[in-house]
């Protein structure tokens, strides 16, 4: 590959023309060592007469470039090894496992081709888990992102105790999700839980609500808990994003007589668009990883009412009497592919939407 390299090395043209003492010690023009003998030649120079920079035409191969940037690669090694071991390898291994009939007791399974995927296609409980995950996403993500933005706009102002409020909202984030699941079972308990006690004692209800025990309410209770638990993180994102909007824009709008609602919809929201996209994306990813909370909160019950895809995979791989690692892997891979497809469609739509907006 042919390219131009501009070395940062200042080279005086002649000692006669350059009187600046700072450059007097610079050696005569020569190629940097790393490029010598590799088909690189100097084709020109530019810059201040005292500090000419050489313009070199070089044809370094990938090897020489690799060698040239060896320190970069050296520092990348730990990351590559860790990601390779704990992310890439498991994904590739799952891909292979998904083609096996394997109970995990023996050292290897039997190759069955796409049979696991075929079975998934007709598995009601897999689709139930799939739809539970989508319902979770559909409710939890807008709720968390929207509510956090609402709170961020309020808490972005300065008023007494604002830090206390911010801390209070952030506090659940630092607790362990699995512990939150256990504690919430007590909080939502139909007989002794504080929520039911308040509802009963205040006369709003005359019968306790079994939030986690009814199929109709369990998933939504879980969504509520998840949103409460993670709201603080999103709030911090939004607060950081809000800091990027220059104050003078608001001041100008105020001078023009825009009320707070107008300022929000015509300044804040449009200026936050890039943040909205990234915050939503992060939240969507987090909303598909709710294993720890769900396992301790409901274990996927009652009657698979809160069985999201993670719990389905876990059940197949570990809690069944005869585990099915191949089938569990197939479920995980299949869901991953579907999810990637949804994300791709979303990305394409976004690009088209932007392009249309730009052209209009």
């Amino acid at each position, binding site marked *: 590959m042919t390219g131009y390299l501009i070395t940062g090395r200042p080279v005086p043209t002649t000692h006669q023309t350059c009187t600046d003492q700072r450059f007097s010690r610079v050696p005569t023009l020569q190629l940097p060592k790393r490029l010598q003998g590799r088909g690189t030649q100097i084709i020109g120079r530019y810059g201040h007469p005292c500090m000419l920079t050489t313009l070199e035409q070089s044809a370094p191969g990938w090897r020489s470039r690799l060698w040239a940037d060896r320190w970069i690669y050296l520092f990348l090694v730990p990351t590559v090894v860790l990601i390779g071991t704990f992310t890439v390898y498991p994904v590739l291994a799952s891909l292979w496992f998904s083609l096996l009939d394997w109970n995990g007791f023996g050292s290897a399974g039997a190759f069955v081709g796409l049979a696991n995927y075929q079975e998934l296609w007709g598995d009601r409980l897999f689709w139930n888990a799939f739809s539970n995950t989508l319902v979770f996403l559909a409710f939890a993500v807008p709720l968390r992102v929207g509510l956090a933005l609402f709170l961020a706009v309020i808490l972005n102002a300065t008023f007494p105790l604002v830090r206390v409020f911010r801390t209070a909202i952030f506090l659940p984030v630092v607790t362990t999700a699995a512990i939150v699941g256990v504690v919430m079972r007590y909080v939502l308990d*139909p007989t002794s839980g504080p929520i039911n006690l308040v509802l009963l004692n205040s006369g709003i209800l005359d019968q306790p609500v079994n939030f986690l025990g009814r199929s109709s309410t369990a998933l939504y209770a879980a969504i509520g808990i998840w949103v409460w638990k993670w709201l603080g993180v999103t709030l911090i994102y939004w607060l950081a994003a809000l800091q990027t909007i220059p104050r003078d824009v608001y001041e100008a709008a105020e001078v023009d007589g825009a009320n707070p609602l107008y300022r929000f919809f015509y300044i804040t929201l449009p200026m936050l668009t890039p943040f909205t996209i990234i915050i939503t994306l992060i939240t969507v990813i987090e909303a598909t990883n709710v294993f720890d909370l769900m396992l301790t909160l409901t274990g996927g019950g*009652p*009657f698979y009412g809160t069985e999201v895809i993670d719990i389905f995979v876990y*059940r197949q791989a570990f809690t069944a*009497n*005869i585990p099915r690692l191949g089938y569990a892997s197939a479920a995980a891979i299949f869901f991953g592919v579907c999810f990637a497809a949804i994300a791709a469609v979303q990305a394409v739509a976004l690009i088209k939407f932007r392009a249309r907006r730009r052209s209009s």
Partner: protein
Amino acid sequence: MNNYSAEMAGISRRAILKSGAAFAALAAVAGSRAFAQGTTTIKWWDIFQPLIPLHTKMWEDYAADHPISVDYTGMNPSDMMQALQLAVRSNQAPDVFNVPSGDPATLASLNAADWFAPLDDSFVFDKPYQQQTLAEGFTQFGGKLYSFPIFSFRWHSTSLWHSKPALEAVGASLSDTANWDDIRAAAKAATTDGKYGLLLPLQFTARIADHLTDLAMAAGAPGRIDWRTGEYALASDEFVAALDFWLSFQKDGSLHPASASLDARQGRSRWAAGEAAMFFDGPWNSGVLTNNFADFLEGVEVTPLPTPAGVDKAYAQRPPIPGTFFISSQSEHAKEASEVMQLMTTEEYYVALAERMDQPPLDLDAVAKANVHPTYRKAVAGFADSVRLAPDPLIRNPDVAKVYAEMRDITPGLGEIIQGAFSGSFDDPRPILQDLADQMTAERDRAIKVATDNGAKVSVDDWVFDNWTPGTDYTSDMY
């Protein structure tokens, strides 16, 4: 220890470090000395938390005059299989372990994956009641002895336990022959003042499936499989009636509302805290209550598996009991492990085991000699009259193991369906139960086909036992 308390004790930080280092050095020396003496350490994993004091003492006594010690790790039942899978695959399996589910299908799969090693030839298990328990696929593989049960098969988990003071306070009581309607009425009466009649551990699906099966058998069902025809009987009238009986508590409002989110341990402690009057549980309830709620136990009464009509005897058919502990094929100490396991076959051991008040010991007569709570004695005495041994196709035809190993769990299973009925996921459980029975039949047919394709000689007729009469023991000579 923080600085302040160290100063208060007159010890400097350096002294603590020095003594710590000295202690570590001493421990290292002691450890290497023990090794030099040739002590064999058996790594032992099991889930029998209530038996820890008994086993630890037994092993320590044995280690005092034998060069064998046991390194015990108590496991959570729900994590055990996962931990074992990882340990076996990474060549770090314990020498001895138990298989929590213990069902022959799992054992067949594990044996097929070469997890087990046979007991040493020196192992003796020859008393008549011991010999009766030996069966291919349960304790033996290929005719060799791999394991043995420490518990009797004569037990069920569906005795009805109630708090006498709670019932007396509302003018109710329960006799040993109380029928389903009596129990429902008593529960209704006891539901008052923030307290409820009955608590069911609905989150523990395996347990409630056992409860319901026992109740269905009390109503006359042959069990989950009707051995006379070999067909799954899960959608029979008796199963539906038993589920209706349970659901009636919810309709009456006498079911503890938190039932849906409680497992057996949590349910038991809330029952013991006085939140409900009745609780279905196995004989180990006496043991757990003795250890944790001794005051409450004094007011507790146990009645046998209740029947719809209140007859004085209901039969529960139980499958043969599988071996309790297995030696790992990766163990280099199979002989020493067998030696330690031999300790669990003596009369004294059965008496001591009874005194832990867990599942009844293999020798039921030991309970009479043991110092146990009256409720435990009563519950176990009832088992001798009412629990009968069911046949098992695996004993008739060892090739059935290949079918068991191939059969996959059907979901939703019985436990999940019960949970679903309570959570309002469907109105009529009968078609769902029928669907389960149909799916299990189809899965068994599929597994039989796979097994026969691979050369096994097995057919669905192996599940049919014409000469079986419900309410009787199906002994080995009847196969």
